[in-house]
């Protein structure tokens, strides 16, 4: 039963905000925006939490994958921008899909490199992991400066997903709906892989007890590399979508989002994908409601949310076995 209590928090938060916001159309707009933001944060955070659950590695350089994904997408979008002028859905998709694919591929390759070169020698040593991943963050952020320059890159959003439509009295941006759909698809795919496939079974077993999985003859190392690469790719996807949402890319964006990602991972419980999903939606909604009601408190409200959750459940909403 206690597993379902955190789920109730999401509608509870949304309903509690309704009288504060005052008008229903505004509330609908804000709720959709909050859900969209939550979905994007979930994509960025899920890899981080899964990697921590599986191999006890907290990657402080996760923000780099987010930035690299955003830059990868931006490069493809600006190069192929000519095709978007038509404004047809097919034309837009023919640019969007390669852009997103480039973002995922670039971030995944970097994730592989990161695991292989930087993190592998320091398994089991938290202090060194934090230091090494911080070092990686410094170096790769500088490399982003070298490759793409230090200035902000404006990012045109393809025509088919700009603009908004009217539902009742509420204006809803198309892009936000698209983000919610993509987020749900990713969550569903992750849930299916984790709960319905053999690999998912091994990953879940690995989170519970890695030694036992290894002693049964499975190479947990290889499994881990796979999860790390997949998590990095997801962060790249999230970064690309976040960049299109903000319509710009900066070298610092990964680090800025990473603070919110950490809050989400802490709220959800380190290592828990389900908790990460609930946490991301809570944070997204909270940020949008407070952004409307008291703009100065937006990030502060998320810290407050984190403190409240930790006071209620000191190890997050869904604590994972060994954490």
């Amino acid at each position, binding site marked *: 039963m206690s597993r379902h209590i955190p789920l109730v928090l999401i509608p509870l938060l949304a309903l509690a905000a309704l009288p504060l916001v005052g008008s229903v159309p505004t509330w609908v707009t804000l709720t959709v925006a909050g859900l969209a933001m939550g979905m994007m944060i979930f994509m960025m955070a899920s890899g981080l939490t899964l990697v921590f659950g599986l191999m006890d590695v907290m990657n402080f350089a996760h923000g780099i994958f987010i930035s690299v994904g955003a830059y990868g997408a931006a490069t493809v979008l600006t190069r192929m921008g000519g095709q978007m002028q038509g404004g047809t859905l097919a034309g837009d998709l023919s640019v969007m899909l390669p852009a997103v694919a480039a973002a995922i591929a670039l971030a995944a390759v970097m994730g592989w490199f990161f695991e292989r070169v930087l993190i592998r*020698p320091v398994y089991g040593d*938290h*202090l060194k992991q*934090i*230091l090494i991943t*911080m070092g*990686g963050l410094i170096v790769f952020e500088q490399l982003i400066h070298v490759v793409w320059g230090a200035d902000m890159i404006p990012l045109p959003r393809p025509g088919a997903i700009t603009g908004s439509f009217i539902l009742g009295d509420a204006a809803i941006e198309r892009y936000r709906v698209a983000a919610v759909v993509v987020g749900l698809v990713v969550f569903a795919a992750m849930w299916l892989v984790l709960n319905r496939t053999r690999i998912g079974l091994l990953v879940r077993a690995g989170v519970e007890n890695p030694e036992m999985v290894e002693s049964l003859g499975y190479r947990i190392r290889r499994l881990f590399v796979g999860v790390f690469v997949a998590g990095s790719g997801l962060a790249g996807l999230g970064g690309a979508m976040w960049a299109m949402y903000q319509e710009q890319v900066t070298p610092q964006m990964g680090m800025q989002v990473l603070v919110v990602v950490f809050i989400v991972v802490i709220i959800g419980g380190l290592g828990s994908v389900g908790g990460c999903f609930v946490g991301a939606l809570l944070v997204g909604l909270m940020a949008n409601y407070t952004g409307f009601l008291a703009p100065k408190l937006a990030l502060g409200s998320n810290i407050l949310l*984190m403190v409240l959750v930790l006071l209620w459940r000191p190890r997050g909403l869904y604590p994972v076995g060994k*954490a």
Partner: protein
Amino acid sequence: MKRLLSGDLPRSKVLAVILVLVFLGLVLAPFIFPGTRSLNVAAKVAVFILLVASYDLLLGYTGIVSFAHTMFFGIGGYGVGIAMAKMGSGWGSLLLGISTSLALSLAIALAIGLLSLRVRAIFFAMITLAVAAFFQILASQLSDFTGGEDGLTFRLPELLRGRLTAYYVVLAAATVLFLALLRVVNSPFGRVLLSIRENEFRSEAIGYRLVTYRTMANCLAALGATAAGVLYALWLRYTGPDTTLSFNIMIDILLMVVIGGMGTMYGPVLGATLFVVAQNYLQDLMKLASGATSGIPSFLQFVPQVLHPDRWLLWLGVLFIVCVYYFPSGIVGRLRR
């Protein structure tokens, strides 16, 4: 001498010579390196030695990573800045600013420690990152109070207005506080911190409460950083987000402590000195190198890019990673071998 250094001697001739040189260089800086720029560098070195040493108490001695050290640095700076800017440039407002910021830092450090240090060290690292980011935004949002992105400029009491007096006040305070930190790490309390770093399970089994000791270390480090922030604000007569709160300074502190040497108080001395001097003078050198290589063939075009003066953090980052892998005790560790 031995008493002054709390029995923690350099234990290496080269290290001893370097330390003496750094100290003499700082004391004589106004005379041997005349000019505003070099005096600024010297004052920054003194302040950062204290700041990084207090961080080493956490990272090197207790084995916990905090990302909120610049927050405490900033509390010190803003405490003095707000008090002096709003209440006039008297000694009263200076003392009030210092005591308020120390009390605030202590309260926040205690709260963070009690909330997060009982779970796991990694939790602490993440929570401090979030809280520090929050504080940074708070400082830029409450612009009526903190001056926002522009920061605060203020006047000092009459006595501290001379550059030379101000410099020696900063240096003396930093030296005394550094020696105090040296005293702390070589006390029985410091030994307990070391034992927690080496094996927390055994330390707890012997009967030391981990949360208590870690939280105390966190509070002491926070107070040290706050004091450093006060001194830096006094020297600059200015407080702003870029000089105190920015995440870049947190990264600088990490680089200094790891390259200098974690787990010894002399590491921060070397790290901070090298880093601050390099920050101010290495970039000139890189500008030369970048200019000299700009005429090379086009397929090597990235070379001048990589040698660009703004990219010096790239090389320090690589050095940082190499240090963590191969020289976990940094320069000081190598010298002591």
